């Protein structure tokens, strides 16, 4: 019997299928991961300071916020959407979280809840603009970006929120068993969202809507509700990220996150997400986020000025995606 014939539902076929699926996914993250490993090894040799516990923890903590928000962005991108408002919303969440502590004297936990709530509300707004008002995501979230930043400034009077107790830093600068708290949160978020996307109905619908919204609708998926849900969940993560960022700098920064959207979208796309929807995985995104962070870290360790750094970041973004595309093409056409 030929391999082109369906090997229907046998136990063995199942496992083989599963394996093949794993492998083909791994391959699509392969290039970004390779780039990451290559860079890692290169930096280890190039700088004696690179491969130190302190530095690795620093990189982890520095990348935590980007990675969390990039995870949120990936979910949105999979639905064929885009969220330009992440920077503004993170700033709004961070500032309001900080004000909760400073002005109301609430605990860090309450502040985090407020920040997450702010993110969720912003996500709900984005979701409703996209689904109920049928405004394309780019424009809907561009508006939220502008409105959100305006609100941050109006609320704070364009002055940062200072004078926070030291306990406020726990989320961003704390450690648990010697591992930065922010890193732990990032891992939990990434694993949780990856699981959600790959193993649950919610994830299935997310990919389906991004792949063919009309098909999803005709299949009886309540696309309005689900799409809004994706934006809300993304908002929750952005709020959390904003809070961690505020905690890291022990203040609410009204200017936080300007052009953050480009970084997180880049991380997602380097990791294999397609802006035309239906494709993208969290592992890839996390790899993408760390790739960018590593370049920045390495540049400082190697005494490369910010200007050359920008050039190098650009080159690496090109290279990572080029090889990924090349690999996929080869895989598709040659086997």
């Amino acid at each position, binding site marked *: 019997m030929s391999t082109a014939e369906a090997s*229907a*539902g046998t136990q063995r076929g199942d496992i083989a*299928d599963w394996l093949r699926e794993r492998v083909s996914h791994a391959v699509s993250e392969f290039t970004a991961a390779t780039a990451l490993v290559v860079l890692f090894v290169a930096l280890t040799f190039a700088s004696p300071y690179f491969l130190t516990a302190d530095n690795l923890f620093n990189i982890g903590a520095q990348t935590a916020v980007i990675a969390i928000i990039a995870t949120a962005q990936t979910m949105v991108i999979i639905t064929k959407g885009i969220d330009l408002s992440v920077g503004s919303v993170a700033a709004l969440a961070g500032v309001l979280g900080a004000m909760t502590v400073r002005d109301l004297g609430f605990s860090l936990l309450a502040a985090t809840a407020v920040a997450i709530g702010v993110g969720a509300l912003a996500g709900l707004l984005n979701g409703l603009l996209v689904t109920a008002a049928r405004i394309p995501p780019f424009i809907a979230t561009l508006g939220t970006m502008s409105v959100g930043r305006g609100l941050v400034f109006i609320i704070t009077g364009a002055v940062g929120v200072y004078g926070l107790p030291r306990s406020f830093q726990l989320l961003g600068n704390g450690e648990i068993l010697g591992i930065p708290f922010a890193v732990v949160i990032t891992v939990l978020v990434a694993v949780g969202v990856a699981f959600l996307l790959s*193993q649950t109905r919610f994830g*299935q619908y997310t990919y389906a809507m*991004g792949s063919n919204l*009309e*098909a999803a609708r005709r*299949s009886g998926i309540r696309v309005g509700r689900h799409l809004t849900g994706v934006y809300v969940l993304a908002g929750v993560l952005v709020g959390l990220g904003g809070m961690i960022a505020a905690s890291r700098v022990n203040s609410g920064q009204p200017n936080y996150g300007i052009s953050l959207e480009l970084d997180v979208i880049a991380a997602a796309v380097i990791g294999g997400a397609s802006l035309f929807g239906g494709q993208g995985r969290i592992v890839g995104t996390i790899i993408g986020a760390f790739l960018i962070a590593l370049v920045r870290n390495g540049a400082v360790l190697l005494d490369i000025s910010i200007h050359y750094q920008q050039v190098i970041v650009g080159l690496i973004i090109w290279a990572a995606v080029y090889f990924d595309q090349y690999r996929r093409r080869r895989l598709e056409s040659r086997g």
Partner: protein
Amino acid sequence: MGTTPTATADTADLPPAGEPPVLEARGIVKRFGHVEALRGADFTVHRGEVVALIGDNGAGKSTLIKTLSGVHPPDEGEILVGGRPVQFSTPVDARRAGVETVYQDLAVADDLSVAANLYLGREILRSGPLGRLGLLDKRAMRQGAAAALDELGVRIPRVTTPIAMLSGGQRQCVAVARAIIWATNVVILDEPTAALGVVQTGRVLDVVRRARDAGMSVVLVSHNMPQVLDIADRVEVLRLGRRAARLRADEVTTDDLVAAMTGSTSTDRDER
């Protein structure tokens, strides 16, 4: 030619007299911009019958079907299920009423696997608390998908292949299999065998017959007149967005059907 078909040639009897039609459309009007795709279309399906909906290209068949399945809410007219008027404003409504549809443009999600597409919107969840959290039982779906496709006799590399990689006929098989798995009341098939091979076409027609025998109603859109006469109990003809004729399949010939579709029913029947 060119005369508006006001009086429709009504030669078909309602099969199970008394019982209201399972699905009925009355005076449906649907406009797209300046194009009037449906201009007061009527349509009826009774329990346990196979009705063929035929008509020229652009006659409005697919549009009518989309109003019956909740994709396009009609601009005017009403839809009745079991005699009671309903509002199908989304496909969910139609599915609730047990109406399952294969669309001409297939409406599959290219990035998703064959199995995922078959179960889209009706995923099998794990049993127990994990299932309540929305956890998918992917294995069960793979097995179910393989079995369903086997029944249609189509060879597909693997059920985990993304739909984007399938051949035209393989894609259509997936869409047909999906509707057949889930149908409970009415199955609407918009040109389901257009891209299918001879064997697969035969299998689909078998499935249609079995569905009818199980008491379901089937609406079949097709341009293949021999196929229509072979499988359908009744034929409804759509022309320029209106019903032009209702015919019993066992009383007509291919030529009659063509005449009805092109609008030469009574006058120039033997033109071709």
